[in-house]
């Protein structure tokens, strides 16, 4: 009923007479110019006629004697399979669902779950971009370059110094006799060099 009322209003809004044709004027701002179509009597008249005929026939069949609940439709027998088809809307809805809508849903889910979320959001952004950054930061720079590279190098230098000094400590034992021996050895070497030369 509401739809019927609204379609009356909608039709009336654009009646092709002066003062009406409101829709045309409303769109003028964006469309710039709207042709005011003349009333096409053939199309309008024919469809009105057909509609009136249909109303008359349906009144003949159903209007005079309303159907009881459960009573068979008087048209079921004479129309046969046409009636069954019409009753099920020619299975258009079912066919439409199977051919178009189910596919639409499938593609939607695929785009949303696989492409947008698992591939683009989780894999590319979280794993590739953020993951690579983390890997570069934690593994490459922090662990390999910083801890195992630069740190290790300088720690190694420290270790080397430590070992060298441990070795040298044996010579620096604080006994005057060992130092005197070293001086004696040095004197012998220098004197020997001078003598041989």
């Amino acid at each position: 009923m509401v739809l019927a009322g609204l379609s009356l209003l909608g039709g009336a809004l654009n009646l092709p007479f002066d003062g009406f044709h409101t829709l045309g004027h409303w769109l003028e701002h964006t469309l710039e110019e709207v042709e005011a179509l003349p009333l096409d009597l053939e199309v309008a008249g024919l469809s009105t006629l057909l509609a009136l005929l249909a109303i008359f026939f349906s009144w003949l069949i159903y209007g005079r004697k309303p159907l009881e609940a459960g009573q068979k439709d008087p048209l079921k027998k004479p129309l046969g399979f046409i009636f069954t088809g019409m009753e099920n809307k020619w299975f258009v809805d079912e066919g439409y669902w199977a051919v178009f809508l189910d596919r639409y849903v499938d593609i939607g889910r695929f785009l949303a779950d696989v492409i947008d979320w698992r591939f683009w959001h989780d894999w590319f952004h979280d794993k590739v971009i953020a993951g690579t950054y983390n890997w570069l930061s934690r593994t490459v720079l922090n662990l390999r370059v910083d801890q195992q590279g630069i740190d290790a190098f300088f720690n190694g230098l420290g270790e080397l110094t430590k070992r060298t000094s441990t070795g040298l400590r044996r010579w620096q034992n604080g006994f005057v006799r060992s130092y005197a021996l070293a001086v004696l050895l040095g004197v012998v070497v220098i004197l020997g060099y001078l003598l041989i030369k």
Partner: protein
Amino acid sequence: MDFITNPLNLVIFFPLVGVLALLFIPSDRKNALRWTALLASLVTFGLSIWMLTLFDKANPDLQLTLDLPWIQVAGWNIHYNVGIDGLSILLVLLTTFLTPISILSTWTAVEERVKDFMLFFLLLEVGMSGVFLAQDLFLFYIFWEFTLVPMYFLIGIWGGPRRIYAAIKFFLYTMAGSILMLIAILWLGIHQGTFSVPELMLKGGIPADIQLWLFLAFAAAFAIKVPMWPLHSWLPDAHVEAPTAGSVILAGVLLKMGTYGFVRFNIPLFPEAAVKATPWIALLAVIGIIYGAWVSYAQKDVKKLVAYSSVSHLGFVMLGLFALNSQGIQGGILQMINHGLSTGALFLLVGMIYEQTHTREMAVYGGLWKITPVFGSIMLIVALSSMGLPGLNGFVGEFTILLGAFGSAAIGSPWYAGVAATGVIMAAVYILYMFQKMFLGPEGPIVGEARQHGHPLRDLNWREIVTIAPLLVFIFWIGLYPKPFFELMAPAVEKLLAVLH
């Protein structure tokens, strides 16, 4: 003195008065804090209406301008330069309009750290108005980056369970693009000797190959913000985790900063590159329209559905802007406003039901219309507006955009508009699906659960109706009589197009 009395500066900085007042209110006086923030944002809205009365809509140039030398060191010429024209006035009004609405929506939703929340919210408003009013690239960049900080905290403190991840992703993603823009801004400052947008437009003369690089650098920042496909990956995270008011501002205003950037900077500063890039941008826009709509439909979380619908809607805006003709750009700008109204309203409504049920899973809802008739009816209007039903705002914008894109010489083929038009139908599919799932059919499990817990679902209360009603007014107004809105922007759009030819 000029600085303080300039209407634009008053609009930008008045929220700071609110911030100052908030500092003196003890943290536990929550209602006083809320009222103060609301009042500050309402006064700011009032100031923006005053600004509108001073605005001469027949004048295509920047108005109410203020240009003061600011930082001038070693040949660098940075000015404090603000001004408004038809390209930005609606966006400034949208900002000052949505802020009080968002604050009102937090009345019972935000109970923790109310003071900090309101502080960040008002600071965010300063940044957003600044972005739309700055006419110096350096100043623009400061406002642009500044908006990130309050939003980062709004998501990171008052957000959902994965709020830290979402906040950091939002911040880094946006900033990555902005750095490229900063480099381009520096190039312009060094080679053209000025950061002033009007002066740069007058000067022109950037070689075509360099234009293309500068265009791309600016586009990187803006395309992430819009977000254009495929740079949208931060958006669902940010939207799902953000508190309701944050989502409203994020969708309503922050995304528009991206599309606005394209109209304000990319097209007039690098016109040759813009023409060259148009088919590619149009292609990404159309992919975004279809992809966003399709992915929306498959969502189970209603907030995520609305988030992806933004990718689709903003695709329309980009397609309109890069039609590079009068209808396309006007439609694009109007659609920015429409999206702010409709999507803002959608997020508000989702937030209102979430406050009661603490779930956004569509599967647990059902049959809400019977239980909450006012809520259901308002949702239906907003849903229809979002899918572009004639008579409501979305239709006017999308129709004008498609008209512009269809006949656009720059895009070069009507096919883009043709494919984009199917996006309108796909929008109807996901929106009506959402409405059917949540509001029609048998009662969902959440309804009985709420009843069992002694808190049966209630309809909207007066505060919630007052929050959403102003949006409905504009949804109908723009849908039925968009002329005043087009008139505000038309001269500035014509001026912009003159630069292109």
